């Protein structure tokens, strides 16, 4: 017994070293794909608070470009309002019988504005932290956009903050389509360049043109249809492959991102449950 205790005392440092290494390695493996612990992540109050301070300084520096972005966004929305009003008056005039046309007063999609508290773009696994949490109605798997551009998907939520997997994270996959012909593929990203994504699963029979826009397909209820993802930079067809590898220049610039909107789809849960029911059978 004494020998055993002596043995432990002699090697206590080494044993502690092994225990700590195993502990951290297991933690790393468990959280490898994305963080799901709220305490040890940037959604924690202390870390998010510190990052908030730095973000405020950065925002002040970036005010100019943020301003111009917001004003162009404003103009775009004004145009849209005008067009929709026109449409509304046209429809309400032509239809005397209102039973055929009801204007969708309650659209299932709602936007929630949020501020980027922390962002990384030069790592292998990048993340964004936003200043909205479950208290504001944010839940997992909501889409995040900036203007009309896709940013990422919410992955973990605390009370006041949430962590977003941006397009530039290896685990993110967004269903997209080519605007010109409507063929659908999945947008992925490989570590390296933070402005280039890869569009997979587009078959070899499709004609892909450089410069074509890539937009969200709307097949999943995370993003509504037609949000801008990027532009086709280059496409190649490896010999013998059935699918193109298409390089997509991403529209959103993660280095200067400061204001985003979270997409809340009222029917998300309904669609998900319905689709999962089929998979279980």
């Amino acid at each position, binding site marked *: 017994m004494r020998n055993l205790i002596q043995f432990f005392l002699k090697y206590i440092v080494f044993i502690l070293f092994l225990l*700590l290494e195993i502990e*951290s390695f297991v*933690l790393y493996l468990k959280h490898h794909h994305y963080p799901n612990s709220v305490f040890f992540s940037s959604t924690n109050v202390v870390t998010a608070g510190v990052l908030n301070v730095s973000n405020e300084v950065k925002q002040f520096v970036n005010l100019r470009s943020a301003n111009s972005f917001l004003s162009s966004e404003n103009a775009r929305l004004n145009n849209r309002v005008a067009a929709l009003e026109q449409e509304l008056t046209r429809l309400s005039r032509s239809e005397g019988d209102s039973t055929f046309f009801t204007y969708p007063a309650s659209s299932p999609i709602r936007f929630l504005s949020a501020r980027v508290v922390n962002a990384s773009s030069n790592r292998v696994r990048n993340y964004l932290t936003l200043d909205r949490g479950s208290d504001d109605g944010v839940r997992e798997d909501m889409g995040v956009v900036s203007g009309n551009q896709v940013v990422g998907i919410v992955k973990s939520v605390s009370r006041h903050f949430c962590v977003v997997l941006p397009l530039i994270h290896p685990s993110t996959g967004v269903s997209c389509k080519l605007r010109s012909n409507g063929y659908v593929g999945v947008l992925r990203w490989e570590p390296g360049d933070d402005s280039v994504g890869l569009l997979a699963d587009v078959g070899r029979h499709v004609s892909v043109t450089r410069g074509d826009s890539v937009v969200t397909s709307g097949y999943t209820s995370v993003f509504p249809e037609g949000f801008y993802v990027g532009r086709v930079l280059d496409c190649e067809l490896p010999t013998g492959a059935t699918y193109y590898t298409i390089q997509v220049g991403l529209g959103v610039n993660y280095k200067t991102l400061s204001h985003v909107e979270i997409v809340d789809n009222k029917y998300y849960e309904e669609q998900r449950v319905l689709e999962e029911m089929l998979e279980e059978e």
Partner: protein
Amino acid sequence: MKNILSHLFRFIGVVLIQVLLIDQMSLSVYVRPAFYIYFLLCLPVSFPRWIELLVGFGVGMTMDSFSNTLGLHAFCCVLLSYLRPFLIQLFVNEEDRKAGMTPSLSLFGWNTYLKFSSILVVVHHCVLFCLESFSFFGFGQTIIRIMLSSVVCFLLILIFEVVKKNNP
């Protein structure tokens, strides 16, 4: 007590420099110095080894919380804290290892301090970036990342040490 407080302040300072300055600059995909290990390098020579390991783990977890990589920095920091006493034993003789001494340029001299810090910096960055990429795919990229980040981190530490030496 005073000692613990000064360590605590140094810890907060180093974390803030890392999180608010270095990480926010996002210089390049290849340049991501882990400057915060300067805190671990500066722990006193006579620190009990098991406390040093726990401190390393704590520092790593703090950095992990900021960068959403639970366990990654902790793994590297515990390894660093385990290796550091061996290097001190190797480079510094018994008489110089007096109580309360901290490894520094003025204590070690240029030759020893360069060896001491460069080895630890390179080991730390090697493990950090290999574990982060977690595959041999794009290994060339990882190698470039290790080299550039280590050099920048090493230079930052030297700058701090030279300033400290000139203003004791």
